[in-house]
């Protein structure tokens, strides 16, 4: 079956521009996560959606970052006024609604963002 898909796979933008990154989770997965992967920083949690509950935004690094999930499926991560330090790979993952850390997270291939 189809896995988690992300688009675009690569995005080059100029400092100060806004970008939108898209994630299509596995069908039936109500939990969705966004992570940022930077060199030497591992997987940095950004935001978590679970069904109709209020998202956990505790990992968003600044108010330039926001995310939404429409219809409980597709999610969009938006970065406003991009900075060079935003350059990273942005990963999306989804999991079944078991509500536990033991639910396996299935990751997409990521979007590599480069801010010039």
């Amino acid at each position, binding site marked *: 079956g189809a896995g988690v898909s992300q688009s675009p796979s690569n995005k080059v933008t100029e400092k100060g521009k806004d970008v939108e990154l898209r994630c299509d989770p596995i069908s039936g997965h109500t*939990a969705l996560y966004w992570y940022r992967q930077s060199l030497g920083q591992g997987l940095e*949690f950004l935001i978590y959606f679970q069904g109709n509950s209020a998202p956990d935004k505790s990992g968003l690094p600044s108010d330039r970052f926001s995310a939404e999930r429409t219809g409980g499926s597709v999610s969009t991560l938006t970065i406003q006024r991009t900075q060079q330090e935003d350059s990273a790979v942005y*990963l999306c993952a989804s999991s079944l609604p078991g*509500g*536990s850390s033991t639910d396996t997270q299935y*990751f997409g291939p990521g979007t590599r963002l480069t801010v010039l």
Partner: protein
Amino acid sequence: QQQVKQSPQSLIVQKGGISIINCAYENTAFDYFPWYQQFPGKGPALLIAIRPDVSEKKEGRFTISFNKSAKQFSLHIMDSQPGDSATYFCAAGKAGYQKVTFGIGTKLQVIP
């Protein structure tokens, strides 16, 4: 605050050797410890996981060793192969809480 500390950040092992990656955690509420494997250009994928009620779990050439008193766990890759070359992440989670906390990752290179 780094809740899961992973070392080393890079590791070079000869083919046939044993690769060992170590992780330590601080939060005693953690009760689930997965390892993820990431190949270049791909997202991480679950490799193996352990609960603290056992001290070891083995799946093929991959073994997790868990030391609850020391709050440490490690991944051992026996008979390492060039195809094992990837980045490995340890993680920790706690009951009733869906998020997991990832370590910084270890880039493993297995040379022929």
